[in-house]
């Protein structure tokens, strides 16, 4: 913590080396987090890099209440959710104008590799509710709240079912 306070102070003073240090310490974790929210690596890296640049540009006004890490994660989260909301609207629009009747669950890609084909086979064997929820999350990119509303179940159930799907998949492919 003290170490971070020192780094933040140095960044405020325009110390390039401290900025570099922070960037290296958090870049990967932040990108991975941004990726889970945006599901696009280019967008994820773009968001994280832009955020760091913004910090640098506004370094003099930098005001960090908690840890620097939580500041960074929150900034990335808000930026991504902002983009995510736009994207959700877009996905909804596409569904409406294109295949109106496909209110059900979208299917995966054409899988070029054997592992993925086997995964599809396992997904097909999942219990019905588990499978529906997993596919809605994975392929329709619906948020937990949207799935909960659509299926009239609790977010808690969704959390359980998705981790269950993941665990079953994991057990099938324990090499």
């Amino acid at each position: 913590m003290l170490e971070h306070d020192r780094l933040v102070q140095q960044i405020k003073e325009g110390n390039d080396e401290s900025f570099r240090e922070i960037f290296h310490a958090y870049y990967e974790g932040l990108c991975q987090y941004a990726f889970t929210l945006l599901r696009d690596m280019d967008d994820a890296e773009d968001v994280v890099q832009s955020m760091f640049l913004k910090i640098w540009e506004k370094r003099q006004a930098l005001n960090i209440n908690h840890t620097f890490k939580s500041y960074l994660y929150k900034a990335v989260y808000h930026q991504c959710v902002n983009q995510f909301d736009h994207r959700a609207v877009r996905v909804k629009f596409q569904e409406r104008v294109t295949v109106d009747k496909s209110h059900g669950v979208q299917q995966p890609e054409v899988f070029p590799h054997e592992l993925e084909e086997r995964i599809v086979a396992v997904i097909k064997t999942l219990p019905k509710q588990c499978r529906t929820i997993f596919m809605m999350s994975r392929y329709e990119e619906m948020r937990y709240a949207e799935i909960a509303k659509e299926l009239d179940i609790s977010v808690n159930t969704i959390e359980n079912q998705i981790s269950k799907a993941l665990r079953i998949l994991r057990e099938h492919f324990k090499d």
Partner: protein
Amino acid sequence: MKNEIEINDELIAKYLSGEASPEEAIALDDWLQVPANRLHFRALQKMWEASFPSKSYRPVVVESAWANVEKRKHAGLKTAETRHLPKSNAIFKIAASVLLILSFGGIFYLYQTKKPQDVSLSSGDSLKHIRFEDHSMAILNRNSHLVYPQKFANEQREVQFTKGEAFFNITPDAEKPFIVHTEIATIKVLGTAFNVLVKADTLEVSVDHGKVLVYTSTDTVYLEKGEAAFLRASDTAFKTQGSNSNVWAYATHKFVFNNTSVSEVFRYVEKAQDCIIHVANPEIGNCKLTATFESVSTDYMLNLITEALNLSVTKNDDRTFTVEGEGCH
């Protein structure tokens, strides 16, 4: 600040689904500093990624990212103007659609396009050749209609096929599936050639080469070379059978007949060349033909066929022919 968040599979799944709060993400990140935890996480992440390969996490190269940030930092440009990663952000992706209005939870969202409008193409009474920006191509048969963007979105290439018949030859791009939306089902491919026919409420998808996925909310089929799937709008499951490349001869100008009855031969020729062939004697249709034609005129092809079978052909006008002769039993 002490982390009270417990890391378990639920939380990992939540994180991978893009549902983790910043606090949870931090807790997970702290937890990942332990190598054994990281192994467990990577195993679950691998499963998650493999179930949707086109949307996979790609490890970052921190050094090159830093170099990029350095460059932009020193250029002293505003962040908003300096994005130079190959793909634009999600906000621009939304702008891809034409002016769109939709109601969502009772509120109207309004977006104005920043990109060129989609192309809406009707073929009328001649074939139309389309070359997409990724060099994929489509040949639209007569009386067909396709809507496609001048520039594809970042994650996938999407077109809307509303009616008629089209032959697609898609440039492979494993990162960006090519998707044909129809009223009846959706067709998804990575790189392949296939024919799509939407007639009345029936969809027919035939594969020339490569792999094709056709799906609705109730059924899915994988098709490979030489396979075809049929679906009526009222059906819940696809019917599959072998495909016949003569169906899309209108696009390829290639006919392959292998002991095919002349009545069938003429049906394919009529369809592909948009002509009418009258048969003076129904027994002509019983004759069998084995031959391959590539890029030849209708006149020439009919001359060759009739000659081979000891028949004769007369051209009535540009589009109608009459075939005469003894025929076969």
